């Protein structure tokens, strides 16, 4: 293969992880823009183009791509239309430009409800006088939807995931991604309206588009542009058939417990088994958002551990198994929150650390502070700090008098941001190996975190719930 030099400057491309990774890799290979090592098994975040010597790329979480392109860290990016609109609806005057729809990706953003909520169409929402709880991974799109419908009173609950699990008990409305109406219905929800079709999109930074010559790269996309993706009804039904999602059967329970999905699920399931709590639908093989216990008064839901403290504070759950890190993150944001840690469970232990590039001439946080004060040009002022714990990071930086700084919220894998797009990260690490691999060094360990049981203080004080909670916590202490 002949490697050509792009005219003028270097060009940086942000490529998505996750749902669009393999189709994006196929597309790029097909149009002669392939990047070595861009695959599901990618070990490195940084990639070089096989075609153009001064074109580089980084693999990022899809959600991070619109903002990274908008702030100018990348000239071009590929991500779903949902994350682009989520950004644009809040920052319409920003520097993110939609270049073209790519002909892959499927599904739409839907507004949906549950049969028990009592909403059958959008008009019900406009005239509804009661408070409407809307849960979504897309809080900006959800808010725009509520405002355009002129909803009288609403509250938006941004969640990290599992939005479909919230109605009817914990939300009235959910704004979520789904392949089509059947896909939404397969999750036990009633689709009300399609808000936005979701395809992969090529986006660009406005300034790059105005000033840099990106024509050689854009020309490669020529053959792919303009065709609309098609998802047939059959395809959608096929996908739904393969989904092992159990439709929720719901009834009110006296005590509500939230259990974690993701990495925490297996150790949590093993822990509960040791504690003698028999559950159906909470193991490696079965994915159910609502596992059943042999205690008829116990309602269980599986949601993201990041979302649990807020949900417990709201009284949606009495108890939850989450990480101490996420509890502290919540308490930094809401210091008087009625959530309490009962006890640590001894698994899922990680360290929350502050780390910088090995190249940075500092060894601890005090040295970093003087460096930021003395020679801001070395680190770039303000200091850019990437973290998925923005409230913990904010407090840590304030307490350590690091000034000025700017936080870059991430959705995990903050190490991908250093050193080009951030100067420091505040994130969790199990063994420190990943940090080492990315040539980072730890400046400070903020604290150690493991899984813990949290409770709502009002539930603990309630004479109606006290005894049941006592029974359950005794059982879990034995785990």
């Amino acid at each position, binding site marked *: 293969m002949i490697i050509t030099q792009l005219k003028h400057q270097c060009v940086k491309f942000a490529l998505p992880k996750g749902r669009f990774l393999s189709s994006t890799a196929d597309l790029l290979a097909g149009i002669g823009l392939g990047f070595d090592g861009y695959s599901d098994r990618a070990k490195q975040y940084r990639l070089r183009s096989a075609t153009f010597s001064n074109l580089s790329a980084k693999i990022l979480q899809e959600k991070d791509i619109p903002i990274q392109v908008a702030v100018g860290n990348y000239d071009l990016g590929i991500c779903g239309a949902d994350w682009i609109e989520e950004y644009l609806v809040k920052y319409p005057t920003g520097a993110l430009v939609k270049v073209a729809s790519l002909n892959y990706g499927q599904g739409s953003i839907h507004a949906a409800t549950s049969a028990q909520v009592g909403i059958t169409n959008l008009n019900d929402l406009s005239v509804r006088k009661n408070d409407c709880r809307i849960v979504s991974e897309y809080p900006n799109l959800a808010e*725009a939807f509520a*405002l355009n419908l*002129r909803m009288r009173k609403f509250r*938006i609950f941004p969640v990290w995931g599992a939005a479909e699990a919230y109605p009817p008990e914990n939300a009235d409305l959910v704004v979520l991604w789904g392949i089509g109406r059947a896909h939404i219905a397969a999750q036990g929800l009633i689709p009300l309206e399609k808000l936005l079709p979701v395809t992969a999109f090529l986006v660009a930074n406005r300034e790059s588009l105005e000033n840099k010559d990106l024509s050689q790269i854009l020309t490669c996309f020529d053959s792919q542009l303009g065709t609309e993706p098609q998802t047939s009804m059959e395809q959608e039904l096929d996908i739904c058939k393969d989904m092992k999602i159990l439709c929720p059967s719901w009834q009110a329970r006296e005590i509500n417990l939230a259990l974690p999905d993701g990495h925490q699920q297996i150790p949590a399931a093993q822990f509960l088994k040791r504690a003698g709590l028999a559950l159906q639908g909470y193991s490696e093989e079965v994915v159910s958002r609502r596992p059943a216990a042999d205690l008829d008064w116990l309602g269980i839901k599986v949601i993201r551990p990041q979302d649990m403290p807020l949900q417990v504070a709201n009284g949606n759950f009495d108890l939850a198994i989450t990480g101490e890190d996420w509890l502290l993150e919540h308490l930094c944001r809401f210091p008087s929150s009625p959530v309490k840690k009962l006890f640590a469970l001894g698994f899922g232990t990680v360290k929350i650390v502050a780390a910088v590039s090995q190249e940075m001439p500092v060894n601890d946080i005090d040295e970093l502070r003087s460096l930021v004060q003395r020679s801001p040009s070395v680190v770039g002022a303000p200091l850019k700090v990437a973290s998925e714990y923005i409230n913990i990071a904010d407090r840590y930086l304030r307490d350590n008098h690091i000034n000025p700084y700017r936080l870059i919220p991430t959705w995990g894998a903050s190490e991908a941001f250093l050193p080009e797009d951030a100067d420091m990260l505040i994130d969790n690490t199990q063994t420190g190996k990943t940090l080492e691999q990315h040539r980072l060094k730890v400046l400070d360990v903020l604290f150690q975190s493991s899984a813990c049981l949290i409770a709502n203080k009002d539930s603990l004080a309630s004479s109606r719930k006290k005894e049941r909670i006592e029974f359950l916590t005794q059982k879990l202490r034995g785990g």
Partner: protein
Amino acid sequence: MKNQKCKGMQDLLPADMLRFRRVEDTFRSCCHNWGYQEVRTPTLEYLYLFTATGTLTPGMLGKVYSFLDWDGWSGERIVLRPDGTIPVARLYIENLGDQELARLFYVTDIFAFEGTGKENRERWQCGAEFFGGAKFAADVETILLAEEVIRRLGIKNVELRLSHAGLVKALLKEFRLSPAEEAKMTSRILEGDWQALTKVKSARPEIARLMASLLSLKGKSSSFLHNVRASFPKASRDFMSSLKDFIEVTELLDDLGCSYEIDITAIHGFEYYTGICFQFVSSRERIGGGGRYDRLVPLMNGKEVPACGFALYVDHIMKLLPLEKEKRGESGILVKGKVLTPEVVRTCFAVAESLRDAGHAAELSFTGREKSDYRWVISVSGKEPSPFVLRDCVRKRRREVASLAEIIDIIGTK
């Protein structure tokens, strides 16, 4: 030096504050003369206060500064006050709802995001609200009060433009659009795009004709509205009743010799208006506006209380006022220490205090670099037998003085 001011915010310097206070003082004095009482609402309110009534457009609500409080885990958002009237209506309902009539006024800042960077994101308003005010007499009261403030401020070439929200809504109904289309059209109109109405295809040509003539003709007296009524006898009952209301207001204004222009487009931004709407324009800039909003209090769970009011836009008005210098010449006194010894400084403080007690403004100086527009300058040397030198800056005289009592005696008590 690097600009450290937050984007979209403004500093008011001493010269700006002189103009600001002139607007505020004139407004406050006029309001008191008309029997209005001052209130102040908090900067933070719940977001739902502004969504619950359905009275701000989605476009405006999309620009509010909203966030979760430190105890906002329930998801209840709060906002930096984006509007002056709704918080005052809340204050009225919660505290004064038993009063049949309440005339209230306020001076406040409101916050709204503005993306072009050309306008302020924090803007100041002088507003008055009349709760319980019966029909056209109350409408005319608020118009004349606003007009008096503008007149007393000495702003020239001000036009008063009148419209009627009930009339516009009735007219919109005549197009027989679907509810969704009508909501969209209302939003466009409220954001100033009146031309959108002329593009709507109506099955009824007489409605399109009525719309076109209302958009192109500008009446200068109630006769114009009588002519409209005579030209469109088949208009709906809502239209006719709004027109009657409009005519009553304009006839009273005619009788009182208040000149105006009827301009159907003189409604801006807010959906809560139900009756007469008015705007004051000078040098092509809107400097104030208001109207009747009879549905707002009941929509906020208050009683069926009619209301009307207005706001004057301080930032716009200030630009029309001449810059003025702080006038000290007539009464300002400078107490000047010749040397910076503890004894002289102490004496200077004592002299200044006695002068202030006697009702004068007295400024201290120990640097010798003071400005020159004072009425009197007292130099304190501390040297007996004449520790003070008093200079009369108007008569250009200078004399040595032995005591503080003598100084007060010469200058006089205020």
